């Protein structure tokens, strides 16, 4: 449980840190998202109920800090990010055996794809409200860029969290023997 609470704290810190990380001008102003990578690691390392709790917590934070009420209208309802996190974390949780067999690259790539999918889903939701569905090069890069960045940082984040799990004597780590 210590590890789970540590993950909650790390998610909070990462979510606040995202406010201070500037967009990447060389990548069409793409933003840097760290929280999804942490949540997706949690999806692999935590049991199903705790995975849902982490998705709930991270989704709530994302909704509270990024979704805006403008002129009495909410573009993305509170709770939609929870659903997105839960669905993608569920997929990652289902692929846990691969991670246990040491196939980290699959989850690193999936972390990137899922991060971009969350941003794409947000874009589709706001487009549904605002109208005019357009996909320019800038939009593709702003959706794909954070995913690429998430893929790049995933090994480091996974390694750090794995190490954190070990030092907190967390038992539900994906050990090879559990799946073989």
């Amino acid at each position: 449980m210590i590890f789970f609470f540590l993950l909650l704290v790390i998610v909070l810190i990462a979510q606040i840190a995202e406010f201070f990380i500037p967009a990447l001008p060389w990548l069409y102003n793409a933003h840097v998202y760290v929280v999804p990578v942490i949540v997706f690691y949690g999806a692999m390392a935590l049991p199903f109920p705790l995975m849902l709790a982490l998705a709930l917590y991270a989704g709530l934070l994302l909704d509270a800090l990024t979704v805006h009420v403008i002129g009495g209208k909410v573009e993305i309802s509170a709770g939609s990010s929870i659903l997105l996190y839960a669905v993608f974390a569920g997929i990652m949780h289902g692929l846990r055996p691969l991670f246990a067999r040491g196939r980290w690259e699959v989850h690193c790539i999936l972390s990137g794809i899922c991060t971009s999918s969350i941003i794409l889903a947000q874009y589709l939701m706001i487009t549904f409200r605002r109208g005019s569905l357009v996909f320019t090069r800038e939009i593709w890069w702003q959706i794909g860029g954070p995913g690429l960045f998430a893929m790049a940082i995933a090994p480091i984040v996974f390694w750090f969290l794995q190490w954190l799990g070990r030092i907190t004597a967390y038992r539900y780590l994906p050990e090879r023997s559990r799946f073989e």
Partner: protein
Amino acid sequence: MSRTNIIALLIFGAILGYFLSFGSESTRKFKAGVYQLLAPFLTTGSGLQKQITSVRTGLKSLEQLERENAALQVENRALRATNQGLRDVEHEVNRLRHALNYRERSVFKLIAAEVVTRDSSTWWRTVTINRGKQEGIETDMPVVTDEGLIGKTTTVSDSISVVLLVSDENCKVAASVEGSREQGIVSGERVTAGLNPFLNLNFLSKQADLKSGQKVYTSGVGGVFPSGLLIGLVKSFRVRELDGQAQLTPAVDLSHLEDVFVVTGRK
């Protein structure tokens, strides 16, 4: 699936359903509550970021001098903003006196605020400022700098507020063009590649024929933004199928916002 997982899933579904049922007011309250909880972290983070930037750029000075300098800068900007407001109001009052004999307008009441964070999300253009309900700020109040309009407040908690920038697609401002009778609606673009976005002035007449460099001011229609606030300068004009559209360069550099002023009313 084990019994524990099913129960967890049911609880999760119930909580999710609860949040999905939120209306705009509940969402605003929820958002304001979370912002209020995180306000100390965001303010501290902003301070740390400024310190790091200060060290990085090598602009070290005595603490007292730095504080005094910062206070003077804020005061200077406040005076310049008031001056700008006075100029705009004077211009408008003169116009109205000559044309319609409207009653005189007064200058704005301003609350100085500091930008704490920028929005970390991809699809919205907002900043967070370190002033809230405690200072008399409410939702939908215009936010300006000495150079012009930057946006309006959306979510307001006790000590922190979210400002929707004029460069956001959702921030719509009724505007008029200097030296013409043209009026339109200014809004931002959904996605911009650069740090300095352009604004669009829509619903102009096809015969508008605006020239580059013409100033665009808030027209006061709609009730949120008072008239006479500079929004930007015309960059280009094009005729569309049904109307004319001008592209504007924002009057304020929205990528480097530090000190801003919330307009709480007129003096």
